[in-house]
């Protein structure tokens, strides 16, 4: 019976050249060990999430966990934040180098050093080696974004910091534990140099608990299979991902593809800074060269090696089969470079505090654009900048005791780009975050911090349009309860909005302003910069939706009617962009009129643009929304 079954035959043929059988690997043990590593990484993640003390880790989940072998090569990551997990190896390699030959069982090495391969100073890395019978086998590693890192201002992402000494206490690879003993003097020195000492101590414990838990489980795993057999399977797991990635990349046409985009500003008043990439795809290797990008900025808006490696990798990992396990086997197919002293790779001692937000967003954006020329169906429309996510802080006087408070406020984050088969999601917050960050409920926010949220809704017409639509942008209005609130804008992408692909339109870009609630006077502000919000004033952010994908005239007309009925897009947009006519009371589709309008539009319009916009400063949101007498503040300083 089976001989005549084509499905069986096809499968049998396909797996005759099975990767695993070539490697002489038992496919059953392989599956068991592969799953076990994922379970361990997941357990590390849960430990960190449940035990940390700040909302940025416990609620927003701005952290990641991963497992490396001794070399170190990535064996397994929990799919947390792409910008972390695709670059953790860079800092870990520096740790290995720094303590070459002096790594002991029971050590904990930490670092936040951007010039040792970390993403930016806000990200704090803890790593512990896993020894088995005296042999170093693995690393358990976490990276968590700290609420504070000892910058000259109360933010861990200071756009205005001039150099490494202003942006943070720098921690090159350093041991917090040696041979199981805490180095209390060193830990104390660290805590003495950061704000909210108690909270950060809680978060440090959570990051330690996570790696210790990972270590415990890895030892159990090696106990079960023995060190040699375990490593044989680790090798197979990497090879397996390697070969599957290779197969996927070979399916993308070879060539050299170019992408360019612009950063709004560097935090010091310099605008429209170019980021560009030349993406070479050959066989199963992809190389991203960011040469031609603008020189480094004078503030904290600068890239690091870590962020560059992540940014080159993220769009590629999204372009291959999502079922391929993510580890060194995928990452080894992607290399990158940038001239030192450029905005993508700043030269010491330039500040890079903003790196994971900006230029990360723009670096990924240009890789998406280049990839779209090679294989649009595997790429995505633009994700836009990471904006309307201020660091807010102040003094809480509501209780009996006054206390300092601070939060990274993700609730107004930007939407995601559309892909060939899916609309974008809201709150994706660039492909650095890719929806891995959670928002904090309005009620929790108002309980924890002395603020009131007056508005938190979808912004009509904020997304790019297309056959598939970008995720919606958000309008959010936050005012201080009864004490002034410091508000550090740390974003980008307002005046350079997320791009539309294959005829899709860009997102709006968006922006933010301070509003006097009595007079209605508004002060608009660039995506970066500092504003104080006093009682009686509010901060209002309008984030961009993601870019659209494909011809808007091909979007299903009935769904356009639903979007108008729901206030996601306006009646004008439905008509002008989507060519859809409907009854203005019932939102019922006028099929005939729509067909005619769409036909007319198709005949009379210019050819669809593959990518738009293609020039800097294309965002018009601020100009359209500002009234006479209102001012625009570019990168205002504290």
């Amino acid at each position, binding site marked *: 019976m089976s001989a005549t079954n084509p499905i069986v035959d096809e499968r049998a043929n396909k797996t005759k050249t099975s990767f695993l059988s070539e490697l002489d690997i038992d496919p059953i043990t392989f599956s068991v060990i592969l799953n076990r590593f994922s379970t361990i990484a997941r357990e590390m993640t849960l430990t960190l999430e449940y035990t940390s003390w700040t909302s940025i880790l416990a609620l927003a989940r701005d952290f990641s966990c991963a497992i490396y072998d001794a070399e170190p090569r990535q064996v397994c990551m929990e799919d947390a934040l792409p910008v972390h997990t695709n670059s953790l190896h860079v800092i870990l390699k520096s740790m290995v180098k720094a303590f070459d030959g002096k790594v002991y069982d029971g050590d904990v090495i930490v670092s936040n050093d951007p010039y040792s391969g970390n993403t930016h100073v806000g990200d704090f890395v803890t790593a512990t080696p896993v020894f088995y019978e005296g042999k170093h086998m693995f690393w358990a590693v976490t990276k968590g974004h700290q609420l504070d890192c000892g910058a000259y201002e109360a933010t861990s992402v200071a756009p205005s910091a001039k150099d490494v000494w202003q942006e943070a206490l720098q921690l090159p690879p350093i041991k917090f534990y040696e041979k199981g003993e805490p180095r209390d003097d060193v830990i104390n020195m660290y805590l003495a140099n950061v704000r909210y000492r108690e909270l950060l101590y*809680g978060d440090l414990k959570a990051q330690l608990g996570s790696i210790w838990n990972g270590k415990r489980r890895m030892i159990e795993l090696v106990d079960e299979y023995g060190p040699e057999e375990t490593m044989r399977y680790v090798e197979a797991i990497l090879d397996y991902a390697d070969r599957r990635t290779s197969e996927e990349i070979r399916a993308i046409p070879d060539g050299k593809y170019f992408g360019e985009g612009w950063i709004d500003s560097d935090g010091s008043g310099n605008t429209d800074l170019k980021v560009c990439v030349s993406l070479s795809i050959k066989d199963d290797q992809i190389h991203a060269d960011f040469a031609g990008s603008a020189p480094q900025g004078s503030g904290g808006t600068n890239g690091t090696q870590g962020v560059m490696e992540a940014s080159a990798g993220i769009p590629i990992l*999204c372009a291959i089969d999502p079922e391929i396990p993510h580890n060194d086997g995928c990452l080894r197919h992607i290399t990158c470079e940038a001239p030192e002293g450029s905005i993508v790779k700043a030269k010491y001692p330039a500040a890079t505090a903003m790196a994971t937000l900006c230029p990360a967003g723009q670096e990924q954006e240009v890789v998406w654009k280049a990839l779209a020329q090679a294989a649009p169906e595997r790429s995505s429309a633009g994700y836009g900048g990471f904006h309307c996510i201020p660091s807010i802080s102040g003094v809480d006087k509501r209780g009996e005791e006054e206390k300092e408070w601070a939060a990274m406020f993700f609730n107004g984050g930007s939407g995601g780009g559309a892909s060939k088969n899916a609309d974008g999601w809201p709150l994706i917050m660039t492909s650095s975050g890719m929806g891995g960050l959670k928002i904090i409920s309005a009620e929790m926010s108002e309980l924890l911090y002395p603020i009131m949220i007056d508005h938190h809704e979808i912004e009509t017409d904020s997304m790019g349009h297309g056959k598939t639509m970008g995720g919606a942008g958000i309008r959010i209005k936050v005012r201080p309860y009864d004490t002034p609130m410091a508000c550090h804008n740390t974003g980008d992408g307002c005046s350079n909005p997320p791009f539309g692909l294959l005829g899709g339109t860009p997102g709006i870009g968006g922006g933010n302003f301070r509003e006097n609630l009595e007079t209605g006077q508004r002060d608009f502000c660039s995506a970066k910069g500092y504003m104080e919000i006093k009682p009686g004033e509010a901060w209002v952010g309008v984030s961009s939706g993601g870019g659209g994908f494909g011809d808007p005239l091909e979007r299903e007309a009935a769904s356009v009617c*639903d979007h108008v009925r729901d206030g996601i897009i306006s009646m004008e947009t439905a008509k002008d962009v989507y060519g859809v006519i409907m009854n203005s009371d019932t939102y019922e589709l006028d099929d005939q009129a729509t067909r005619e309008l769409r036909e007319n539009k198709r005949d009379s319009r210019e050819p669809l643009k593959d990518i738009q916009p293609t020039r800097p400063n294309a965002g018009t949101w601020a100009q359209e929304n500002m009234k006479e007498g209102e001012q625009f503040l570019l990168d205002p300083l504290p």
Partner: protein
Amino acid sequence: MQYTLGVDIGGTFTDFSLINADGEITLWKEASTPKDPTQAIKKGVQALADLGDEPLSEFLSKLDLFVHGQTIATNTVIQRNGPKTALLCTDGFRDIIHFRDGFKPERYNIQLQPPEDFIPRYLRLPVKERVNYAGEIQIQLDEDSVVKTIETLKRENVESIAVSFLWSIMNSQHEQRVKEILAEKLPDVPVVLSSDVLPMIREWERTTCTILSAYVLPGIAKYMVELQDFLQENGFRHPMLVMQLNGGTSTVAKVIQKSINSLASGPAAAPMAGLYCSKRIDIDNVITVDMGGTSFDVSMVTNGMPSLTRDLKVHGMPVGVAAVDVHSIGAGGGSIAWIDKGGALMVGPQSAGAEPGPACYGQGGKQPTCTDANIVLGYINPDFFLGGRRKIDPELSKSAIENYIAKPLGMSVPEAAYGIFRIINNNMVDAIRVVSVERGIDPRHYSLVSGGGAGNIHAGMLGRTLDMTKVIIPRYSGVFCSFGMIVSDVRHDYMQALATNTDRFDLEAVNGVLKDLEDKAIQEMVEEGYPEGEVVLERFADAKYPAQIHELTIAVPNGAPLRDTDIQKMSEAFHDLHERMFTYSVRESSVDLFHWRVVAHRRVKEPNPFVSKEKSTDINDALKGERSVFFGDINDYRETPIYDGDRIPKGLAVKGPAVVEQATTTIVIFPGQSLESNEFGDFVLNL
């Protein structure tokens, strides 16, 4: 005590477990009738009456307890065939359900379409009002804006309404007033308030809970009232009880008030069934597993209390209320074995289900399943599948494994079958690990209770891999959940928010809250017909370190009003729990307390325990024969004794390797393990 009856509606069958005064159980199955589920129940009770040669009215009049588990509410949500539902929300916050928690699963899958909003945006209607975190009114309710929503509700023919305002947990005046206005203007449309169903901080969870409540309410109310009327008109003399997702039962009237509790209630009875069997042999820490055709459910009982969670989601939406913590993965008898693109062997989560079923059914299922592997390995007796009621063809199992797995991977058929067995075991072990470790529990200190027909082939291996010492296999393991319903307490949960801290503890206010909740609990239990003396009240609170975000639920001293000395006790309880879960505590810190909870139980009268009458003293009396069974230790088949499970006498051990067969289940005893039947007829597998 005469009869107790548990009735559980499943996708394919409606299960009936009837227990008589001697503790003997009668099992009955009717094909479910999804269009009108009461039809199957009416047929089933008639059949049970016929079995005892009694008229229906006499049979029903002898019933002391009728407990019902249903999937109507869950199916309404999944199939989206409920009433047209609208949400009234605070102005400026229409998109709470669209934004969710902002989290996107499958980060790298850019082709994943975002979820559709459960209520479309045009039916999410803003009302001008605002309360702050302290419960103070910042913006008075604008009744004109309510009247405006009513025009829309009428125009759109809305059939059910959810109302969820920000901070209504601290001050519900506005929600209450809106309900009054709606009752006047739209008297026939049910209205559910968030402050009634889930007075808990975090607006997304509370709003989705309110929406789901409003969505399932009309259907559930109609169905349950109709069924109860039928039973009572035909002789049943008590209120019908309904299984709830919190692991307790409730009267129909009460579950209509909190319709959210009728969702996902099916598997919630499993831990109660597990506890019932374990506690009579003095074990009160158990992990219950229930392996069916498509899924494997794990739940946990610690110190005699089932683990509850507030993170349960239905259709991607959090329910928010306390629910029995059932972790479910796609691993069942029907799980399909396949080879991925890279040549790795995988099992599940896809299932062949009942149609076409495993390859051995010969119903067109070509791909091999877990059941097919178990047949090839000799664990399942092809002539005695489901007690011999279903004919299966072992050759089909063999060729499916050969063609799809063994040949492509270059292995023998038994090797491939044993590979499938190992992988599905590994998936189940990982599921148990995730659940226990997430709760800070070390599974080695727990016993496994294995229910469901398919699970007992694997249970011995799961327990061994997890380093456990005992697996309990209940006598009723084939009808685990419908049995669990009979032994579940009547249970209601009450909650109120009040923020305080152990350093500045507001004793008076807390005692006020606890008294209000307990008075309400007693009053409602009495209204349901239970004497006050039979009601047990327990207090809990949600606690955290002041700067911390996630809360832990701790027990609060019961009984008298709290005194100064109790504050220290609660503080210690929190530090201890924190240390156990997360490896550390901060003893010098004060503790924040926020939600106060009261749980009211009314203990159910348990059915009389079954007592085994088997008198034999020779284990060989239960021997049925021998067959070739595959075991991993020798990596080969060996001739293995097969026993009749119904004839294993009390106190005698069956030593592994062996297989024990019953009509509804098969137990595999691996080498080094032994199986005993205890005095209640349950099996205990010593690992």
